[in-house]
């Protein structure tokens, strides 16, 4: 390790490794040696390598088309339930993601100040040693709980958690509380399942509450919903914005933000008051059928009209249409439900409505509450039990938030604990496949928390904002360059395998975690030689050869035992519209109305959402997606903009309680007058992202942190902003 650093050692921002791709010579990388050796290609070097996409968490199966030994295209794998032969725009752009000229391809160690973006290239040896030493130092001086570990939904999550629990820290940050805590906790409490599966084969009536399915694409589900609508199913869509889903819906209801639960509670009122649900039948499976009429009595459509702005007659009619279509009617559970503090109640109301429809009780029905355990049916390497965790978890789970499952956590609350040092001070942060600087609300607060860290290490494929502010950056191989643990999907165990040789020194996280674990003295928890060895262990119970799985792309898993009685994994074994658990925790046992705050005069709701061409905070540097993306501007209702003398395309200043951004305006008819909207994921700070840097603004700068005491969910739409000429 040198002490004197020459200018050449400084990382020039933006490696030239894949410059050829950027220069217009199109990417045709060599197919991975492993795939070639596995016989996936014929003598001429043509063939398909099956793997899985990672451009979002839907993880469509893909087939990488190889010609003359070079990967030329990604196609959807018809055998995979999530793709069925299709890939969304992000999936199609995967080669460009892997061949992004701004990829981080060697371990990097910071040399300047945090945030300057000055790093030097280092060897794996040096970097891993450094991280391990720092982590052990923190463990020795402050206790293992002083290390924070955070990662986002990925296939090596189990191994990440493995490392964290083995290390002895309870402090786990995942993106879940920014996303679906409300939905998961509500359905866990009501159905006993995290997320009921949706089935559109026979559906006749669909109510989407938010869940902009046509832009927040989950390939197969978007396809199924679209085909259901084509077939004649009626789609009713609640959203303050006229999104692409709105244009496919039979009815678009521009509901006032924060009042979804009022709408839904009124629907429940109409259904139970007029006995439109077959309560005798559902009573068998539902707790609360008796008292629900009274509990819902005050939520009349007239009451809801005043709150939501939707005419009472409309609410009444939709409730009746929904009930009439049962059991082939569905209220979608939603996914990212981190909108308002009352979103938990919205989710409870959704669960209730589905129960009343009976759709979750019919085999093959629109909703299914079967539990599919993660990793069930697969093998695992042996390992010793974890050390006992003694420290309180900094994010308040479960001591402040008793109903939040440990694996969800309340990520956004970590920062206050770090900043205040209460109940104890955290000193280190290990982040993998996550971008908290851009994703957590109130970016300033996140930066403040980062400032308190003695040591930050990040695993990423590109110089994302979080990597930019780290002390060590480890290069992960992209999803097209690595093995990941097997992922079972609907009865098939799918493999992710390298379709391209890893570039530079990038490595899979299976390898990284093991290497780090060994240096931390936790080698016993990583008893596999390499990735293939790990996969073989996973496949052992299926008695199938790894080479076979590589060729086919998956292995069939044994069928589930025949289902008998319909039961739910709740304390009562039934659907709990009335939840004793909630009551005991001091919350309302019924789905209930909680008044949301409203913006002051002249202020707007700041809405967030998704676009089909990007995924959250990680894809904005992809040149192909950039090419086909709309410019990220602030949506404002055109009449309102005119009233305020603001012109389309001009620069405006948007201010909230915690931050301020400059962004160009989009004057549009497609949004409520009391709302503005920003697409998240822009306004990067990292100058290592040549394509994304300088494009758009970050809504995280503006978001105020709000946490729902029940589900721990963040309330991203509860931030109010003022807008004026810049």
């Amino acid at each position, binding site marked *: 390790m040198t002490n004197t650093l020459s200018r050449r050692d400084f990382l020039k921002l933006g490696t030239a490794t894949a410059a050829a791709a950027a220069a217009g010579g199109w990417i045709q990388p060599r197919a991975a040696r492993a795939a070639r050796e596995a016989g996936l290609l014929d003598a001429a070097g043509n063939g398909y390598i099956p793997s899985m996409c990672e451009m979002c968490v839907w993880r469509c199966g893909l087939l990488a088309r190889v010609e003359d030994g070079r990967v030329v295209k990604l196609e959807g794998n018809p055998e995979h339930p999530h793709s069925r032969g299709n890939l969304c725009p992000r999936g199609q752009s995967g080669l460009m993601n892997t061949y992004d000229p701004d990829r981080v391809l060697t371990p990097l160690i910071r040399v300047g100040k945090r945030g300057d973006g000055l790093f030097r290239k280092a060897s794996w040896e040096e970097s891993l040693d450094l991280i391990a030493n720092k982590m052990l130092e923190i463990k020795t001086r402050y206790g293992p709980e002083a290390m924070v570990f955070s990662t986002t939904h990925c296939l090596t999550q189990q191994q990440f958690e493995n490392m964290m629990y083995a290390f002895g820290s309870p402090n786990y940050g995942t993106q879940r509380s920014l996303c679906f805590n409300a939905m998961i906790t509500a359905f866990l409490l009501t159905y006993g399942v995290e997320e009921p599966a949706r089935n559109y084969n026979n559906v006749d009536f669909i109510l989407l509450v938010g869940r902009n399915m046509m832009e927040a694409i989950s390939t197969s589900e978007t396809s199924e919903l679209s085909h259901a609508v084509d077939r004649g199913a009626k789609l009713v869509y609640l959203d303050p914005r006229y999104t692409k889903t709105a244009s496919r819906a039979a009815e678009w209801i521009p509901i006032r933000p924060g009042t979804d639960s009022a709408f839904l509670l009124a629907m429940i009122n109409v259904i139970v008051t007029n006995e439109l649900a077959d309560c005798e039948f559902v009573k068998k499976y539902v707790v609360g059928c008796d008292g629900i009429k009274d509990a819902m009595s005050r939520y009349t459509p007239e009451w809801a009209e005043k709150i939501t702005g939707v005419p009472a007659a409309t609410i009444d009619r939709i409730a009746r249409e929904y009930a009439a279509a049962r059991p082939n009617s569905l209220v979608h559970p939603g996914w990212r439900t981190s909108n308002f503090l009352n979103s938990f109640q919205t989710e409870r109301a959704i669960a209730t409505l589905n129960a009343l429809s009976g759709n979750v009780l019919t085999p093959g029905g629109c909703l299914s509450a079967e539990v599919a355990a993660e990793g069930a049916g697969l093998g695992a390497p042996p390992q010793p039990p974890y050390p006992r965790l003694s420290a309180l978890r900094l994010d308040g789970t479960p001591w402040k938030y008793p109903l939040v499952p440990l694996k969800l956590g309340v990520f956004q609350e970590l920062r206050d604990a770090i900043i205040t040092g209460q109940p104890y001070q955290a000193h280190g942060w290990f982040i993998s496949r996550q971008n908290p600087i851009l994703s957590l609300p109130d970016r300033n607060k996140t930066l403040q928390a980062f400032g308190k860290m003695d040591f930050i290490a990040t695993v990423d494929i590109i110089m994302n904002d979080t990597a930019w502010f780290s002390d060590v950056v480890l290069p992960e191989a992209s999803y097209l360059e690595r093995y990941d643990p097997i992922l079972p999907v609907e009865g098939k165990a799918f493999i992710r395998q390298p379709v391209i040789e890893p570039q530079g020194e990038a490595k899979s996280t299976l390898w990284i975690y093991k290497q780090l674990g060994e240096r931390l003295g936790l080698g016993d928890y990583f008893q596999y030689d390499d990735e293939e060895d790990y996969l073989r262990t996973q496949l052992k119970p299926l008695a199938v050869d790894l080479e076979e799985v590589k060729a086919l792309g998956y292995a069939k898993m044994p069928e589930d035992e025949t289902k008998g009685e319909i039961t739910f994994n709740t304390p009562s074994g039934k659907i709990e519209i009335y939840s004793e658990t909630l009551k005991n925790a001091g919350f309302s046992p019924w789905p209930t109305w909680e008044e949301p705050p409203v913006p002051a005069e002249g202020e707007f709701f700041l809405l967030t959402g998704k676009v089909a061409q990007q995924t959250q905070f990680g894809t904005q540097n992809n040149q192909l997606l950039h*090419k*086909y993306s*709309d*410019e990220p501007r602030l949506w404002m209702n055109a009449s309102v903009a005119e009233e305020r003398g603001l012109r389309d395309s001009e620069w405006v200043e948007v201010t909230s309680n915690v931050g301020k951004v400059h962004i160009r305006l989009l004057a549009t008819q497609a949004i409520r007058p009391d709302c503005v909207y920003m697409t998240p994921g822009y306004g990067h700070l990292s100058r290592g992202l040549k394509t994304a840097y300088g494009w758009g603004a970050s809504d995280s700068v503006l978001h105020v942190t709000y946490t729902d005491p029940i589900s721990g969910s963040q309330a991203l739409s509860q931030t109010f902003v003022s807008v004026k000429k810049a």
Partner: protein
Amino acid sequence: MKLNLTIDKRLQLKPIVIVLLALMGIAFVVAMIRYVSGIGSISDLSNSFPWGFWISFDLFTGVAISSGGFLLAATVYIFELNQFKPLLRPSILTAFLGYIMVVIALLVDLGHPERIWYMMIHMNGTSVLLEIGICVMSYLTVLAIEFAPVVFEGIKWQKAAHFLHRFIMPFVILGVVLSTLHQSSLGSLLLIEPQKLHPLWWTPILPIEFFISAIGIGLAMIILESSLSSRAFKRGLETHLLEKLAKVIPIVLVVYVVVKFGEIIIAGDAKYLLISGIMSILFWAEIAMSTFIPLILFSFKRIRKSASGLLIGAIITFFGMIMNRFDVSWLAVKHSDPLSYLPTFMSNVKYFPTLPEISVSVGIFSFGILAFGLAAKYLPVFGKQEEASTK
């Protein structure tokens, strides 16, 4: 230290020549940039605006204003109206230089100027543009042959001059046929865009309208060229000849107006005449300048017999006809509708000629003027009755 600046008088350049050379130089530089960095680097042409100023001015207008050549060739050689002979050579020269300018402009506008000769070996018989290309190249050859005697006389190679002169007829006929074809074909170019060219202009008989107007503009050009060069080179005005030509103009314009309006009415497009906003304004301005006003002006003997009257009338006709060419090739053509387009780099509907773009046309035009001046100075362009002094 005083430099002894004695330059041979013959090498001294008149200021006008310096200006023209400078303009040519600028055009050359711009053209070089265009060859290296693409047409988009010096103009705002785009996928929604593939043709712009160069095509409208250098091609459409350039060809139209070179129509004097075949008119006079026909007049003198076919109709044997020898009184017009003094006007013949300058017109041939104008046409010859005009077509050279067209070809130079094409060499800058074409994406692959080095492949311009492909039109001779890869021929698509349904393409109007091919016909124009072949005709222009052939007619340029014919004009060269028609002008060659002047050159030969100038370099005192009388035998060759006389030889060519004797066999000039087939070339004259060929020239008239070729001119008829491509003057009308420029109109035919727009036949394939019925939904883009405004109904006030688009008609299946566009080629006929173009040919008639080409005769009109040719006559006007002869008058214009003669008037200007008489003044520029301080020669006698040929008003007596021009007056006779001017007499024909109203007849041509009447035919043109009858055909144009007749077609509009018969096609049922009369409803667009007054209610088409900018298009109506363009249409009536064009008709006024290219037909109504010249028609009226040249109907008056007084104007026909006056040098300035002829000049003004010719200028008005000239600009009116240019307007027509610009309208048909650009201003009345619908380019991409302002719909939402994605990706945004895809269309660039706003087009306006840029300074570099115009400078190329100006430079080419300067070349034309310079060449005309040089030829007029050193070759017997203006007949054998030249003044002794050539300065």
